[in-house]
């Protein structure tokens, strides 16, 4: 007992030391959150409300706009621009599927087969990000040019006839056709597919592949039954990261397409910046947002992967 009472006193009274950070910490999270959240509320959430209100206004630039709950703008906008909506979804879906087909082997290669080349390939996947994507998209004009190598190769294989018949290309051209736009979309959003795929593939324990092989699964069966199901989180977030921006994109349609390949982004941009028909533009933008949120929620429910980001 005597040794206990003779023990040196604690450096500071234990009770207050314990309590102090907690009472001080009670408001800390709110102070930490305040500036950033305020920024998002004012410059992200509030604009959405403004946009919603703009979409039901009527008036003109000269006389000003007033909220008149004019929902007809929505019907008019949909009635006039539904082909662009459909086209956007179709192009974005095609680009997403292509991204998955092209990106999966590369992500698989980096995760399992690259060995000491892994870092170099990773750098090569990311590095193009640092060259302005507009410059890189313009390079596709050279690659797909009318007398360029791609058109030449497709022509000599008579594949252009097939793609023309399918409506993907027109005549002897690839540029200014749906094929060129989808090709550009695929190219632009491919890294957004590869990176999440790689992340989820890299997490898979290599012994699971060995275990599958040991249990009579051939390499392709191993892929189908083990590797692919385990990479589902990457597939889901990769397809979302590709599909969402691709749907709203108007750069590829503008630079690589023609008036026949205009997507909904092009329409919104023209309405907003050139025609200055703000209600129609706001309504279109609102419809696009709602459509994407609807499709994404449905998709996430179906794929059963709730923990994405």
């Amino acid at each position: 007992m005597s040794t206990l009472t003779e023990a040196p006193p604690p450096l500071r009274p234990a009770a207050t030391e314990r309590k102090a950070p907690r009472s001080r910490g009670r408001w800390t999270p709110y102070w930490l959150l305040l500036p950033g959240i305020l920024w998002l509320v004012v410059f992200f959430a509030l604009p959405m409300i403004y946009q919603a209100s703009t979409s039901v206004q009527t008036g003109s630039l000269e006389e000003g706009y007033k909220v008149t709950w004019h929902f007809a703008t929505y019907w008019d906008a949909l009635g006039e621009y539904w082909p662009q909506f459909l086209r956007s979804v179709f192009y974005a879906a095609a680009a997403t599927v292509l991204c998955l087909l092209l990106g999966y082997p590369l992500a698989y290669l980096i995760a399992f087969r690259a060995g000491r080349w892994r870092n170099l390939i990773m750098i090569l996947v990311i590095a193009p990000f640092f060259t302005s994507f507009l410059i890189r998209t313009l390079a596709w004009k050279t690659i797909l040019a009318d007398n360029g190598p791609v058109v030449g190769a497709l022509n000599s294989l008579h594949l252009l006839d097939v793609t023309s018949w399918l409506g993907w290309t027109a005549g002897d051209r690839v540029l200014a056709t749906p094929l060129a736009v989808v090709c550009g979309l695929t190219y632009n959003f491919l890294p957004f597919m590869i990176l999440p795929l790689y992340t989820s593939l890299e997490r898979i324990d290599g012994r699971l592949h060995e275990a599958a092989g040991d249990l009579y699964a051939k390499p392709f069966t191993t892929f189908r039954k083990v590797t692919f199901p385990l990479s589902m989180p990457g597939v889901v977030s990769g397809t979302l990261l590709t599909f969402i921006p691709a749907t709203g994109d108007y750069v590829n349609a503008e630079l690589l397409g023609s008036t026949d390949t205009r997507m909904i982004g092009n329409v919104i941009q023209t309405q907003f910046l050139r025609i200055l028909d703000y209600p129609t533009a706001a309504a279109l933008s609102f419809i696009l947002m709602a459509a994407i949120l609807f499709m994404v929620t449905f998709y996430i429910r179906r794929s059963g992967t709730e923990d994405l980001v």
Partner: protein
Amino acid sequence: MPFVNWLRRRLVVIAGLLTLGYLLLPNVIVTVFSFNKPNGRFNYAWQQFSTDAWKDPCGVAGMCGSLSLSLRIAVWATVGATVLGAMIAFALVRYRFRARGAVNSLIFLPMAMPEVVMAASLLTLFLNMGAQLGFWTILIAHIMFCLSFVVTAVKARVMSMDPRLEEAARDLYAGPVQTFVRVTLPIAAPGIAAGALLSFALSFDDFIITNFNAGSTVTFPMFVWGSAQRGTPVQINVIGTAMFLIAVLFVLASMAVGNRRNRQKA
């Protein structure tokens, strides 16, 4: 048959490398065409070899001005988004508070929204407020869309950190501030750096949101966009090539430093 077998075993590798080629092809074209001497206004077809553009990269009216404007905006957007984003990330991981779900959705939504929607709605706000479009509206927009990416990057890092490290620091007489500065911040640093780097790249390269909210101000991507209509100077390719090379060298250098540090530790 041996060849077929050989091919089958390397099918994934071959397909992956083809994709890599697809990804890098435009960069090759950009580089090659930076040595072109085009006939006319557009630099889309190969004419003859020339180093003129490399000798005079700023020889195009307005291009280098737009480049420096883009760099300035990217730096300030990175600083702003990184500070605000890191604060949110720490609050999310280390504290309990009300409305957590709402905060999480507010972070997630900007990343799940097509850029054109954010661009258009932000412009509506600025028009309603009667704001002067230009440097400041661009900066505000860039901080807004970079914020979520910083939060995600920092959050991932701080979440993987052992909370007992902070408890150990407090046990060893470090106060809350000292614990944060000496333990939490150094460990979170790679996440913060990743978020900052991503912000810089996103801001520097952004076109859609900038195009809506820039007014008559011209950033580098907007200059490229405009030149696609008026005529593409070779100097654009010079800048594109230089950026690619700088990025690759920067990454290689940071990897070399990291390797040496690891070796010293071992």
